Each structure stands twice: as C-alpha cells, then as structure tokens.
C-alpha cells in the first residue's frame, strides 16, 4: 500500500506549488492523472477488509440494504416500490418501499443491471460490497471540484487526497460496508460543489444540476436535512452581510423549488418535504431572498429619494404582515407535540433529548457524543489544520469560502452531538485542511524559489520564522495574491519590499512580510511533508487495523501467532436457515433482526429499523420477565425460536447480557411493571451471587447461562469477569436446540403447550392453588 500513497501524495502537494509555466503546459494533464490516482487510492485503501477477511457484507444495516438490493434485482423496480415485507416486525410487517431511502439500493441495483447486461456475471453481493469504495473515489473527486471552486486546483487536489483516506470516512465506506452513508457523502459534497459552482457562475444549468444532486442526496440519506438547512443559512449569511447578488438568487431559488418538488417524490419523504420543521428554514429564507431581490430591483428603478420613501412604506406594512405570518407559523408548529421536529433532529438540537425521552435512540452507541480521542482517531492531523484553513478562507472572504466556513462550523457542532455525524465533519475538515496545506505550500515553495538565486542575502528575518507552518500560511496569503498578479515586476518588487521590511518596526515587518527566509521555508516544507506522512501512516493503519473488521466474523490471534476465527453468527444463521421451517418466527433483540432476515431468511419480531417502540418494548419485556411470562408473551406472538447472543465463554463484550439494561429500560418505558431498579443491586448492574432475584430469574439470564456451569465447573463469565450468580437451573418452557461452537449464539425453542385434558387442568390448578393456600393457612391453623 505504501508505494501508491507516496506516489499520489508527492505530486499532489508539489503540484499545488508547481511553477506557473508547468501548470499551464501540463497542469491539466497532471491534475487529471493525479485525480485518477487519488481515485485508485480511495478505492484500494478500502479493500483491506476484503483482503484481510473476505468479500462479505458487514455489520447490521448493510445486511438490510443488501437484502433490499437482492429483492430489487430479482423483482424489478415496481415490485420494490410496493414491497410489503412480511418477514419482519411480525405480525405487523413493514412497507419497505415507502420507508426506505432508496438511493443506495437503486444505485447498486443499477450498477448490477448494467454490468450484467454487458454479460459480466457479478453477483449482487459483489456489487454491494464494492459500491462504497467506488463512491468514495467519486466523493474525493467531488471534494476536488468543490475545493477548486473555493481556492483553486492546488487546494482541490490536496483536499481530494486527504478525503480519499480520511479515517472517519473510511470507517463508513470500507468494502462491504454497504450503508447509505457510502453514497450519501459523495452526494453531499457534490451537491455543495454544484451550489458553489452556481454561486460562482450564476448559471441556471448548474442550478438545475444542483437540484438533481440534491434529489439524489434525498434519495440516499436522511442527512439531506443538513443540506436543506445549511444552504439557507449560507444564503441568509450572504444577505445579512450585504453580499446579495443575482447569482445567489439563481443558486438558491431553483434549488428550493425544484429540490422540494423532487424530494417529495421520494416515498419516504413525501409530504414531509413541506410539512416538517426541518424544511422550514429553507422556505423562510426563500421568502426573505425574494423580498431582498424585490428590494434590490426597486432600488434599481427608483431614484434614491423615492427609494427611501418606498422603504419606509414597505417596511411598516411588511412588518405587520410578517408578524402576523410568523405568529401563525409559530402557533401551527407549537401545536404539534414535538414542535414539528423528528426525534433524531431534536436530539441534534438538544443533545439531552434522546436520553430523556427516546431510549431507543440513546441506546445506539453511534448516537452517543464522541470523546476527544475519537476526533484524533477519525480526522487525525486535520483537526490541527482546520483552524488554519478557516483563516485562509477569511483572506479574502468570498461567497464560496464563507460557505465552507459555515459548513465546518455547523458540522463540528453536529459531530460533537453524535459520533456518527463525524462523517459529515470529515469532508469539511478535508476541504479546509486541503486549503490550509495548499496555501502553506504555495507560500513556502514560492519563497524558496525566489530566494534560490541569492541565498546569501537575508538572514535578518530568521527571528520570527519559528511559528508553526499553520500560522505561517495565513500570514502570507496577501503576498501570494500579489505575487500572482504582478509576476513580471516580481524581482524588483521583492527587493523593494525587502528593503521596506528591514526598516520599519518589527510589528510592521510581520504584517508586510512577503517572503519567508529560505531556511525557515525549507524546514517548514519538511515539517509539512512529515505531517502529511504521519497522516498517511495513520490512515493506512486505521484502514487496515481499526475499521476493516466485518463484525460478523471475529478473529483473534493465539499465542503462537495462529489466527483463530469466530464465525458463530453465520453458523447460527446458517443453521436457522437450513434446519427450521421457512415460516418460523425468531425472536431476538432488535440488533440481530436485519441479519436474521437477510442471512437466515426467517421472520423476526423486531429489527434495526426501530420504527415501533411498543413492539421492541414487548420483546424487551419478554426478555426481562421470568420464564413463564416470557413464554406467554412469545407464544402470543407466534414465536417458535428465541435467539440470544452470549459472549461469556470467549469474552465477546457486546452480547445480550451487556445490552440487557437497555431492554429493561425500553421495556419498562412501555410496560411499567418492568422496573429498572429491580435488576440493579445498589444501583450496580451485576450477574454474580449479589445480583437481585429478578435478574437471576429473568429469561435473558436463564437463556444465556443455561448449562453454562458445565463448561468449566464454576460458571466463570469472561466478559463480566465474575462467577455467575445462579449456576444450576432447568428450563421448563424453553429447550435448547442449537448453540454455536463458541457459544456466542444460543437458540432455544419454545416448548409446545402441554396437552390439556378436559376439565383436569383447571381442577388440578385450582386444587393446587387451594392446597397451597391451605398450607399457608395451615401454619396458622390451630387444629394442626
């Protein structure tokens, strides 16, 4: 892997600073070749998962997308829109066509169809596995285009190279990670590019393309609301700062009209495109921009005096109307319980919202706020380059650079709320770091170049060169601009300025500094290259070690260096699919729903599309109830098998016992007889001898630890690092039918109802209860 990266990185950075003549002659060709290489790099760095593991779909959600794609490729697009899936959410079912963002599946389905019509027999799975790497290559090209619009091709190439291997994005787009984000990041960056392009050119052609790109984004990911809020914010910013222009109008108005119309064509969005509060900002700004446009137009035709009169008239009348409209809007919005916001959006606006009201959203680990190390892990040195890039964007501040600044600021906030949204931050960080690096190299290489003829000359400014390269970069932007403009007279100018710069006070020197001393520049270039190298090493490490595991196969290295594979999940799913009846229902916690339907092809009660809280709470309640009640709940839902994931034998930490408190919480949220404190001893969650009886008698405990003690004689749980509390017990309503090789998945079957002999059961039951009552009384009975 090392050689292509260095090959790509070297020319990328030098190209940014390549001399003007070379750029003119070969610039286009070199940039094209570099872009191709960046694409190859983006694709190949994501193949570690295939090389180290296998070409297989990863994790949970991708399995659902894979299954939908299979359905699409088998049954065609019309059946796909009308697909009612009866293999999930039993007995409710789920309308897949209307509740899924179809962009990813349609993309992969189209690729599959095209490839197969050319008689290249790739399986649907292969296409799905490689969709994400292909689109990350596209995304880095889109980043090139966007940054090029903002700060020129040098910055563009640097940003593209950075985005090609930013770990945050790699984590979501390795081969096999077939999720919406894989195509959505490309769509996001490309939409932004087209917006900036329209803003810079004022071309209606690009505005239309922009609406189409936005449509693709709406198709692919719920994160499209980020676009439809960020762009209005930027428009508003431009208006407020007096940067309104007809280009801004063309960039914005068609996007809102066409974009909203197109967005409402996507079934999962539908009328939400005009009804929910997420889209409200875009319409408000749409009105504002029209008012502003009208004002500018009137200003153009009227004389200044008349205009003043008109302004006073319109403002007084307009204010009244506006107040009325806003009052109505607020009333409408406030009348809905969630203020018209969806739960996830509210979580973003109020980070504590989910943990208070929606435990399902809070229970997902990727919805937690990130820790500081995760920033360093996911964007690495970019975190330090971003501030430099922001400063570079401020000099000079253009429409497009203000957009990039707004983008980074908002995405930093969102990434601080949810780990998952680090993904939105990554392109912004890459773009800004690309700008910073490129500007820095521009300055440094230029100063080296100008000083090379007269090396001996000027050691005088060596005093203040020690600032880090990132600080150096912004200082010198005006100089580069000037230098670019006044090329012919450069030599003379430079001498003059050096003279000027020697004379005045140090503070002035710093400000007018145009050329850095040679040694400083050389050192700074070396340091920057070192920084880049460090970034590359980190990215390759992250891609190879941290983010490539498919999570359905686990591996561990034994002491002698051998590789031990834990393939228990697929063992269990394969067993289910071959040895149970096609229509059997399998109950498990919702994490395993998608995998069970996709790999085992069995009907599940709940899955990762957590649309029905009550249903999930029912399963959670069953898992936290004693055996008999659980059996009754499951039996009433027609369940035949119960699947639990148990890591106690091999030390697999994300098993059901560790997730169990969420089951209790979610179950207790709907069925109040499940109380979280019953499962905790003094506020502590434990399964050893100190655990509460409710805990030791609940179904999840029993199914996880059934006959566990016989493995080692003590029942030592390697995840919790303790001996279990209740060791020997029997199951009365469930029977073990399958346990995988490392015990990671255990499948139980509900025992059939006991044969009822007419009249006898009731009697025996009643007599038993009576007798037991008598026993109780008996102790107090004086005759005994």
């Amino acid at each position, binding site marked *: 892997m090392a050689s292509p990266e260095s090959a790509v990185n070297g020319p990328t950075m030098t190209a940014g600073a390549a001399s003007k003549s070379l750029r003119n002659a070969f610039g286009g060709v070199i940039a094209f070749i570099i872009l191709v290489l960046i694409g190859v790099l983006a694709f190949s760095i994501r193949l570690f998962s295939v090389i180290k593991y296998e070409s297989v779909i990863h994790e949970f959600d991708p399995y659902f997308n894979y299954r939908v794609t299979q359905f699409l490729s088998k049954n065609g697009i019309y059946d796909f829109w009308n697909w009612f899936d009866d293999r999930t959410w039993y007995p409710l079912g789920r309308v897949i066509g209307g509740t899924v963002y179809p962009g990813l599946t349609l993309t992969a389905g189209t690729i599959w169809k095209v490839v197969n019509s050319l008689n290249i027999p790739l399986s649907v799975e292969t296409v799905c596995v490689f969709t994400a790497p292909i689109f990350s290559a596209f995304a880095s090209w889109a980043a090139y285009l966007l940054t090029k619009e903002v700060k020129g091709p040098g910055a563009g190439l640097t940003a593209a190279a950075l985005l090609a291997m930013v770990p945050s994005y790699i984590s979501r787009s390795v081969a096999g990670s077939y999720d919406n984000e894989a195509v959505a990041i490309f769509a996001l960056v490309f939409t932004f590019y087209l917006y900036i392009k329209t803003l810079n050119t004022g071309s209606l052609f690009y505005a239309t393309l922009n609406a189409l790109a936005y449509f693709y984004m709406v198709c692919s990911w719920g994160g499209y609301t980020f676009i439809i809020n960020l762009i209005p914010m930027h428009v508003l910013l431009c208006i407020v700062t007096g940067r309104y222009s007809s280009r801004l109008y063309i960039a914005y108005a068609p996007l809102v009209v066409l974009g909203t119309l197109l967005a409402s064509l996507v079934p999962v969005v539908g009328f939400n495109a005009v009804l929910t509060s997420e889209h409200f900002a875009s319409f408000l700004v749409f009105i504002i921009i029209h008012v502003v446009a009208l004002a500018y137009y009137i200003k153009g035709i009227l004389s200044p005096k008349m205009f003043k009169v008109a302004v006073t008239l319109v403002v007084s009348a307009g204010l009244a109307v506006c107040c009325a409209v806003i009052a109505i809007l607020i009333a409408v919005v406030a009348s809905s319980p969630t203020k018209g916001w969806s739960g996830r959006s509210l979580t973003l606006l109020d980070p504590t919202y989910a943990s208070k009201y929606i435990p399902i959203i809070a229970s997902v680990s990727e919805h937690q706020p990130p820790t500081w190390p995760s920033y360093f892990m996911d964007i690495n040195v970019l975190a330090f380059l971003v501030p430099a890039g922001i400063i570079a964007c401020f000099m000079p501040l253009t429409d497009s650079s203000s957009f990039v600044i707004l983008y980074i600021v908002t995405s930093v906030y969102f990434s601080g709320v949810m780990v998952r949204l680090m993904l939105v931050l990554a392109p912004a960080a890459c773009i800004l770091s690309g700008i910073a690096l490129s500007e820095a190299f521009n300055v440094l290489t230029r100063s080296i170049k100008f000083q090379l003829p007269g090396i001996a000359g000027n050691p005088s400014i060596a005093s203040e060169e020690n600032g880090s390269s990132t600080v150096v970069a912004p200082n010198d932007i005006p100089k580069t601009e000037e230098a670019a403009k006044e090329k012919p007279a450069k030599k003379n100018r430079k001498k003059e300025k050096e003279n000027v710069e020697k004379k005045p006070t140090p503070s002035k020197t710093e400000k007018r500094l145009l050329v850095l001393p040679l040694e400083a520049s050389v050192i700074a270039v070396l340091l920057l290259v070192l920084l880049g190298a460090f970034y590359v090493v980190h990215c390759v490490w992250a891609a190879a070690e941290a983010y490539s595991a498919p999570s359905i196969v686990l591996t561990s290295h034994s002491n002698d260096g051998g590789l031990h594979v834990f393939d228990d999940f697929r063992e269990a799913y394969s067993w289910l699919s071959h040895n149970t009846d096609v229509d059997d229902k399998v109950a498990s916690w919702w994490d395993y729903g998608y995998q069970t339907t996709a790999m085992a092809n069995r009907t599940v009660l709940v899955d990762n599309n957590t649309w029905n809280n009550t249903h999930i709470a029912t399963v959670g309640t069953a898992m936290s109830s004693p055996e008999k009640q659980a059996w009754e709940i499951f039996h009433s839902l027609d369940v035949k098998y119960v699947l639990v994931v148990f890591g106690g034998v091999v030390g697999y930490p994300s098993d059901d016992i560790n997730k169990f408190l969420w089951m209790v919480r979610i179950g207790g949220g709907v069925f109040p007889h499940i109380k979280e404190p019953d499962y905790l001893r003094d506020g502590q969650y434990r399964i050893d001898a100190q655990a509460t009886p409710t805990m030791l008698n609940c179904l999840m405990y029993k199914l996880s630890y059934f006959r566990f003690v016989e493995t080692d004689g003590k029942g030592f749980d390697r995840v919790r690092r303790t001996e279990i509390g209740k060791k020997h017990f029997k199951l009365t309503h469930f029977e073990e039918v399958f346990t995988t*090789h490392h015990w990671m998945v255990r499948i139980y079957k509900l025992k059939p109802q006991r044969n009822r002999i007419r009249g006898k059961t009731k009697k025996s039951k009643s007599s038993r209860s009576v007798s037991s009552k008598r026993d109780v009384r008996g102790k107090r009975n004086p005759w005994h």
Partner: protein
Amino acid sequence: LSLSQVENTGKAAASDVLLAFPPTEAEHLAEVKAQAASGKKRKKTYAHLIVEPTDVPDAPNGAKGFRLALHNPLSPGETTTIEVLYMLTHSMEPFPAEISQSDPQLVYYRDSAYILSPYRIKQQTTFIKTPSTNVQSFSRVEPTNRAGMELKYGPYEDLPAYSYSPVLVHFENNNPFAVVEELVREVEISHWGNLQITEHYTLAHGGAKLKGVFSRVDYQSRPSASGVSSFKNLLARLPPRVHSVYYRDEIGNISSSRLRTDSRKSELEIEPRYPLFGGWKSTFIIGYGLPLEDFLFESTDGKRYLNFTFGCPLSGTVVDKLTLKVVLPEGSKDPSAVIPFPVEEHMETKYSYLDVVGRPVLVLEKKNVVPEHNIPFQVYYTFNPIFMLAEPLMLVSTVFFLFASCVAYLHIDISIRKG
C-alpha cells in the same frame, strides 16, 4: 451411505441371462455390474458382461429386469458362473426414526431371503453383513444362522421362479449417513489455460432424525457418548495441481477447511458450519481451478476432448441427483459426451464474461450416484482458436473508440452559432 452388497452366483442356460429386481429396489439402484467367471478357484478369470435394462413380460408386481449378454451362448446342460454386483442407495431405514443426541442409531434393512429371479433356483444362500455386532432382531427364514457380524440365510433348495420371502434386520449402524441431495458441478473450460470447477452441494444427514435438544455441552465434553451418528467433517478428493480453492456458502466464506496437496492428489478436508445431526441440512459451494493441460487433449481427428472424472469428489457419500455441466468455450461446436453408463443429456447456453453468442453447455444428469461412478468420461467438441481473441479484441476496440470519440469531441465544433 454404507451399501449392502449382495453377491449372487447363478447358473443358467441361454445366450443371455435375465436379472430381476423388485420395484422398490429398482428405484434406488445405483449400479449393476456383472462379470462371468471361468476357471477354478484362485485361477479365476473374469470377463465383464454388458448389462442393459429390459422389460420382463411376465414379471409379477412390476419387477424390473436387466439383461446380461453372455459372451459364449450356453448350450443346454452347460453351466457358467456369473457374478453380479449391484448397489442400492437408501436401502436402510432408521428405526426409531427419531433419536436423541446420546442414542445410537438403529436401522432396518429389508430384503428377501430368496433372490428374485425369473428362473427356477436350484440352490441359494444369502449372507448379510452388519457393521456392528449389535443386531437387535432379524427375521427367521429357516435355516438361519447368525455369527458375529454375519447373518446367513439358507441354503435353500429348489425355489420356483419369482419366489420372495421378506426378511427384516434391525441393527446398530453409526456410520454417518451423509447424503448429497443435489450436486451441481460446473466445469468451465477456458482455452487461456484454466479449468474452473464450481460445485454446489445440498448436504443432508439421512439417518435417524435428532429429537429435541442439541446440547453443545454434551457434544463438546463427551464426544464419544454424544452424537455418535453425527458427522462434522468430510473429505473431498480433488485432482492434483489444484489451485484457488474456495469453500463457502451463500452467506460467505466458511473458514473451517484444510487443503493438503501432493503430486498425485489433493485432499480438501471441509467442515460444514455446524455438525450435522440426523435430518439436518446444509448447503455449500466448493470451487477450484485446474491447469487445462492435464485435462484437455486433442484427438486424432482434430477434435478436442475433455477428460474429466464423473461423480462426486466427496468420499463416503451418495448423491441423489447429480447435474454435471460442461461449459465449453464460446464458439465451440458439436459437443458430444462419451460416458460408460447411461445419463440424461441436454444442451444449454450460458453467458459469461463479455460473451456475445454465449457458451454451449452440455448438461449431464444422473440419479443415485455412488463412488463407483467416479470414472473418467470424455466430451468431444470442435473449436476454432480464433474465437479466443474475440473478447480481447472487443475490449481493445471499445477503448479505441472511446479515445477516438474523445479526440473527435475535442476537435469538432458543434455549437450552433458560427463565427
């Protein structure tokens, strides 16, 4: 599946000899071989006889007949010795049909004490060998003897034609009943030097069904006492010089396999994802590549022929239905197969990488395949090597036209406005 092998020595007087099988056996008949023996003991020489199915006009209850053609017609009064070997699949029935994990597997074997024959039999003895000494019960058709692992019925004298006397033997048989319910093998010939074989297996355990619980604790801690009739690994014998072997199923790679190669053979030891108990099923795919020069030859008349092994590479299994597809390269003509036993044949077309007209596929189907069918067969076809260049040329011309159109686009002014 262990097979009962019944050897029969008959004496007859005609130019050909008829054999008869009851209809239940005829359904599962995998193979019938016959040879005529001549000479005394230890100096016996055998001559293979041709066996072909015929209709027996006066056979009772739909018994099926086979005709043996003798090399030298027998004149009346002369005698000859014929040895007939036939193999049945699924001839044992587990009883009890469902057992729990710790139980041994008991099976019934049904047969007749007398051999079904259209001729009068002067004298006959039947031996039944069981795999273990644990025989629960057996029918008695006097005289009947049991000694160790062998049951002896007879000798019986002077039996009329088509006499039948059912016997039932109930004994322990813990051999894993690995049944490949369906096997589709695809042999794809590429004249660029590779032979790609893909085998789709549907494997089942044909023995007594597992009743109720499967306990991993018992299976792991007491391997000798628990699940004795289950099996967890299989051995596939592949040709030597095999490469790019993979073993997977529809949800991905199966990591539990081991390949051993030497110069004469390759052995692939595979474990299904889970141990197979009675009634459990599993599916998997094995694929591998072979060097073409080991299998493809040119015959004297200019035709090419593929010489490959029929049957199933898994040892110790029977295949209920085997479909063997030989995918010939695009542009080859007149395929014909030479196989030493009867199979069903038809043609298909397959479109693979960048095919235009498609590749001809010769499909061979056979039911009840046993390891004795692992013998070479040949597929002859004609092929013009110019077709090998079709796909590279197609790619080259596509790229050429792409560049040509780019050049054209850059140099032609197609704007409406002139000047």
